[in-house]
């Protein structure tokens, strides 16, 4: 069977500069897929191309066997939900109303929230551990609480795949681990999750599969132990790392510039 998303020979140019070239990916559901690579490698561009924010010049993207460009935007919103980087809310909305926005792809124009929508909102908030914040305005929440509410918003969409752009940037270690664990749980329950990460330690520990991008090309893909090998880290980031095992789990700590 085909994977949920198939990317073949993808080229993306921005301002006539090639940002992604000859990218091939198969993104199944049920796995936590990490997208890593140095700044400017094209990680966000790839995500934004999948979300159709950017056009692509060459290649083919298929979601559920259907060409990306032919999918209706409402259906696309049901396939992918997107957690932007450092997400913020403009107005002083309550946490619950923010989470409710995640239901928009499932509502017809002018349709009110239905019972199943309230259930989805409630479940998403419960899983993200933000039920106690339901009636608090977003601008009164601390950074970690805000991130969890935004995560609940994405979760409430019950989409087939979550695309998260650096969801742990700016969070304390406790919240970083919480968010990664939540993403892992979502994948474990069968949804697709693709996440852009800069933290290699978290990537190694939580992701089932990694793609290492550099200058618009995929340098390596596979398990954390394979992708984060000394050679790949040297070529990808120009660093070396310390490796180890704890409780049979592999870990990696970026150590030194080369």
């Amino acid at each position, binding site marked *: 069977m085909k994977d949920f998303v198939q990317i073949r020979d993808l080229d993306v140019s921005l301002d006539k500069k090639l940002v992604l070239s000859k990218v091939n990916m198969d993104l199944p559901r049920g796995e936590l897929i990490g997208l890593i690579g140095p700044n400017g490698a094209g990680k966000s561009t790839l995500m*934004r191309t999948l*979300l159709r*924010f950017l056009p692509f010049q060459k290649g083919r993207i298929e979601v559920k066997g259907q060409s990306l460009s032919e999918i209706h*935007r*409402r259906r*696309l*919103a*049901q396939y*992918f*939900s*997107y957690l*932007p980087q450092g*997400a*913020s*809310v*403009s*107005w*002083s*909305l*309550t946490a*619950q*109303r*923010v989470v*409710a*926005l*995640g239901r*928009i*792809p499932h*509502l017809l*124009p*002018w349709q*009110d*929230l239905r019972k199943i929508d*309230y*259930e989805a909102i*409630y479940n998403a908030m419960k899983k993200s551990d933000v*039920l106690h914040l*339901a*009636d608090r*305005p977003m601008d009164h929440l601390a950074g970690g609480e805000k991130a969890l509410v935004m995560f609940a*918003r994405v979760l409430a*969409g019950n989409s087939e795949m979550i695309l998260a752009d650096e969801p742990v940037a700016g969070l304390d270690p406790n919240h970083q681990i919480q968010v990664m664990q939540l993403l892992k749980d979502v994948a474990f329950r069968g949804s697709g999750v693709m996440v852009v990460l800069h933290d290699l330690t978290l990537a190694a520990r939580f992701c089932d599969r990694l793609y290492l991008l550099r200058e618009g090309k995929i340098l390596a893909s596979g398990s954390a132990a394979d992708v984060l090998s000394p050679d790949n880290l040297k070529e990808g980031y120009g660093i070396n790392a310390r490796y180890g095992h704890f409780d049979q789990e592999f870990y990696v700590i970026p150590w030194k510039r080369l």
Partner: protein
Amino acid sequence: MKQPAVGSKFSGFFLFFSMSILLLLSFLISLNAGASEISLWDTALDIVHGKSSEAVVILWDIRMPRSLLAVFLGASLGLAGASMQGLLRNPLAEPGVLGVNGGAVLGAVLVIYSGLASSFSLALPLGGMAGAFLTVLILYLFAGYMASVQTLILAGIAINTLAFAGTSLVLNLSKDPYAALEIVFWQMGSLTDRSFDHLTLVAPFVLLGCLLLLWDGRALNALSLGEEAAMSLGIPIQRVRFRIILGTALAVGGVTAVCGSVVFVGLMVPHLFRPLVKHEPGKLLGISAVGGAVLVLWADLFVRYFSVGTELKLGVLTSLIGAPFFLALIFKMRRNVS
């Protein structure tokens, strides 16, 4: 299961309902106000029975268009202000940011200057409407359909400045001091001596504009997450932007063409109601239209009551209330930031 949102829906309905009652009362008070004492009920009966009397003329031909225009003006400005603030995600935005009313004023002023205004009575509002549409055309010509919000605001500022410069140039070159005075007074914004002809001319544009502006409540809610997040929720952001800009041009351009420039209503009204709808930009739309209409009806009543001899202009009054309000808003925002 916990469903607090149901409660807020009810309170939203209650707010809208009570504001609508207030609007109706304000409208009746506005109809009742005037130099000559007439009975609203008896005159209304006369109108229904097709009898003509002095009271009918006063109520139907003089007061009715004025009060209806006040509702149009207030509703358009309040609604466009709420939409613009939601679209630009900025509490300091108002319908004027894109230059629509600047363009309408220039169009109307050119009509006064050229002398067309005295040749037929609807030349003035037609000129204003043309100005408003040209503004939007120029806006899209320069900023493009795919423009970002920042580009649109910058283009709006430039167009506004240009329109203001054009208006000043017309005043500057005006050889006829009477025409110059007329331009200055017209610009200040007023509802005096407007007839049903004015009303029926702009009504289709204003109503269509308001309809377009009311369309995108959910999109504005989604936009509070940012443009890309809204797009990922399936909101067609370019189309939403186009509808709101076109709606503003139709509604605000329409009322400005007839009433002149009335500012600050579009800025103030959304702020007054935002806490009452729990800061939801979508829910703010309808209530801002109703609230704007009430505000302008009362401002016009105030203007009529205090105009002895020289007419106090409506636009002057709204600026007098609005500017301190604006300062208070900035003061509050500064405190929130620090």
